[in-house]
């Protein structure tokens, strides 16, 4: 249950840190990419729009030049001059050498009859009166046809101008070389996917597109989408993905010049940027995740250790609190018992005294009385001893400070118990450090502690064994350890050893107060007393006595 608490905490911290740190990163990355992509796209659109406009203007200029040329020739010659085949041929070659791009040239009278022709086809004498463009050129003066196959079965378009000569009107008609015209348009095709072509109002190709069909076939563009200015539209195209189309209406014929570009190609720079950004962000995420997980684990582990330490300290504190409370209670109980005990003992003594009197001597059960009284007396004595120990007057007193040599005190105590140990075949070995300082302490109380611990050790071994007594000094404490090779203290009893009246000895042998008193003495001195079970067998009691140097005299 405890563990899951830490795992939960760890999970929560990791989650929160990750959300808080990753969310802005991803958001920032996304926003920057989005903004950048928008700007990039704007730029590309701007570029393609500009290209469309520039190319359209170039085409416009080309057409205008042809029209002007035709107009100039028509206006500076009479019909009779131009119907002269020799003359027309001269003019045609001059026109082609100066401006070029004319396939043929014809003169049509007001009846629609082609009265003169110069070109590779045999078109002389053809009547155009029925052709729709004939009416248009008559009414408007200038006409540019859409591309069509016509008589010659080749895609081409014509420019026709009307000449008003006195009462007579006639028309000069020229076919534009589709190769030259297409080459001009195609010069705007860039990159691997860029295309440039012209469609008429109905969306029919007027020049050969690089992809997507043949000249004079219908394109899939809706020309109504393109406005007066250069317009960019974006369309999904099955295999190519997004395609950008920029269109610009030509001035003279209602033709739309279209420049198209696959978005992917134009966007390839952006894609590289996006990939770099994604890699950076992913690396960043990984770094953050790893750091977060690592740090959190470390943190939670530290926390766990600290908690464990605090718990151990709390347990120890609670234990000593419990001992202190037990001590207080014990003392007050003992005190309350002591008062009636004083009286009871006197009363028993008095009965004993009275049994000595003459008349009672004759009583039948005199011996029984005497035995009973002495039994009561014996057990009262036990109570008295317990109460004495509980109230332990020695430890009720403030410790009397005198110069104490711990090694000396240990030796004296061992002397006291040597006989007892020898009878039970127990060897006492000492390893006393020579640098243990003389301290100011209460020798009687220390002796009591050592006496308790050593006699406990003897009792624990009971027969045949070894007790090792060691003293050494640290900076702040003198540490005395008393180890026996007895059976050790069973786990379930370890918590209780310092409690009053806890004993494993027979009733008459121990009151269970020795360790409790020792604990209390050490506590009052500012020292500690601890024990641990030795690996194998036996237990070790460790007494730490604070070093307080005696005042110099």
């Amino acid at each position: 249950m405890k563990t899951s608490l830490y795992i939960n905490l760890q999970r929560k911290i990791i989650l929160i840190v990750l959300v808080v740190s990753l969310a802005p990163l991803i958001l920032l990355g996304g926003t920057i990419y989005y903004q950048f992509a928008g700007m990039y796209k704007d730029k590309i659109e701007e570029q393609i729009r500009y290209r469309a406009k520039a190319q359209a203007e170039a085409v416009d200029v080309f057409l205008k030049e042809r029209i002007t040329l035709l107009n100039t020739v028509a206006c500076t010659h009479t019909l009779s001059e131009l119907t002269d085949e020799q003359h027309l041929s001269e003019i045609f070659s001059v026109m082609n050498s100066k401006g070029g791009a004319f396939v043929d040239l014809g003169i049509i009278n007001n009846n629609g009859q082609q009265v003169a022709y110069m070109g590779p086809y045999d078109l002389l004498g053809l009547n155009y009166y029925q052709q729709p463009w004939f009416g248009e050129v008559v009414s408007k003066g200038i006409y540019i046809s859409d591309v069509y196959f016509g008589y010659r079965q080749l895609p081409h378009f014509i420019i026709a101008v009307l000449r008003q000569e006195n009462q007579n009107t006639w028309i000069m008609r020229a076919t534009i070389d589709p190769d030259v015209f297409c080459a001009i348009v195609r010069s705007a095709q860039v990159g691997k996917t860029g295309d440039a072509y012209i469609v008429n109002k109905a969306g029919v190709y007027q020049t050969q597109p690089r992809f997507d069909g043949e000249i004079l076939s219908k394109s899939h563009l809706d020309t109504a989408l393109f406005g007066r200015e250069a317009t960019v539209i974006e369309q999904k195209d099955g295999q190519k993905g997004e395609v950008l189309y920029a269109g610009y209406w030509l001035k003279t014929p209602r033709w739309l010049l279209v420049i198209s570009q696959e978005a992917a190609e134009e966007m390839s720079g952006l894609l590289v940027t996006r990939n770099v950004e994604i890699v950076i962000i992913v690396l960043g995420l990984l770094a953050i995740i790893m750091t977060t997980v690592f740090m959190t684990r470390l943190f939670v582990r530290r926390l766990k250790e600290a908690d464990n330490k605090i718990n151990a300290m709390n347990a120890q504190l609670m234990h000593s609190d419990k001992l202190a409370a037990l001590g207080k209670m014990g003392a007050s109980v003992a005190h309350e018992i002591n008062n009636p005990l004083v009286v009871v003992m006197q009363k028993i003594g008095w009965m004993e005294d009275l049994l000595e009197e003459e008349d009672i001597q004759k009583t039948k059960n005199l011996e029984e009385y005497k035995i009973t009284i002495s039994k009561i007396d014996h057990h009262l004595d036990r109570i008295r001893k317990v109460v004495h120990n509980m109230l332990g007057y020695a430890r009720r007193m403030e410790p009397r400070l005198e110069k104490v040599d711990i090694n000396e005190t240990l030796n004296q105590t061992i002397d006291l118990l040597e006989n007892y140990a020898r009878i039970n075949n127990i060897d006492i070995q000492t390893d006393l450090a020579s640098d243990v300082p003389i301290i100011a302490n209460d020798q009687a109380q220390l002796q009591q502690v050592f006496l308790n611990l050593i006699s406990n050790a003897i009792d624990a071994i009971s027969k045949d064994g070894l007790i090792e007594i060691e003293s050494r000094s640290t900076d702040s404490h003198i540490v005395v350890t008393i180890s026996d090779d007895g059976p050790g203290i069973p786990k379930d009893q370890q918590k209780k050893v310092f409690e009053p009246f806890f004993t494993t000895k027979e009733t008459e042998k121990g009151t269970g107060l020795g360790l409790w008193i020792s604990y209390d003495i050490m506590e009052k001195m500012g020292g500690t007393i601890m024990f641990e079970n030795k690996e194998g067998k036996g237990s070790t009691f460790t007494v730490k006595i604070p070093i307080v140097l005696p005042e110099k005299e």
Partner: protein
Amino acid sequence: MELFSILVVDDEEDFVETLVNRLKKRTIDAVGVLSGEDALELLGKREFDVVILDIKMPGGMDGIETLKEIKKIQPLAEVILLTGHASVESSIEGMRLGAFDYVLKPIKLEELFPKVAQAFEKKDVHNQKIRSAKIKQSLRYW
């Protein structure tokens, strides 16, 4: 003829009564009182060799105050203090104030008697000195 006289001062009536009875049975001239005030009153009337005085007597005079007064009225009476465990320090102070010794409650008569005997001996020695001094003095006048 009683050996010597003992005054027992303690607020526990049962204890005083029994102890006095037991002492009397041993042909000791024992008297018990239940408070320091009573003890001083009695000491004003007659002499005692040894006073057994409880240190802790709730209400009225406590043992130490009583001891001081006793030493004023009968400086030669030896005082043995009775003490509970909580008042060992007071008994040390009492001894500084002239008490002969102290015993821990609950007492056994066997433990108490040697101390009483010592106290009496001390007083006796003292009295003899006084007597011989008096004799010397009367001899001088003589």
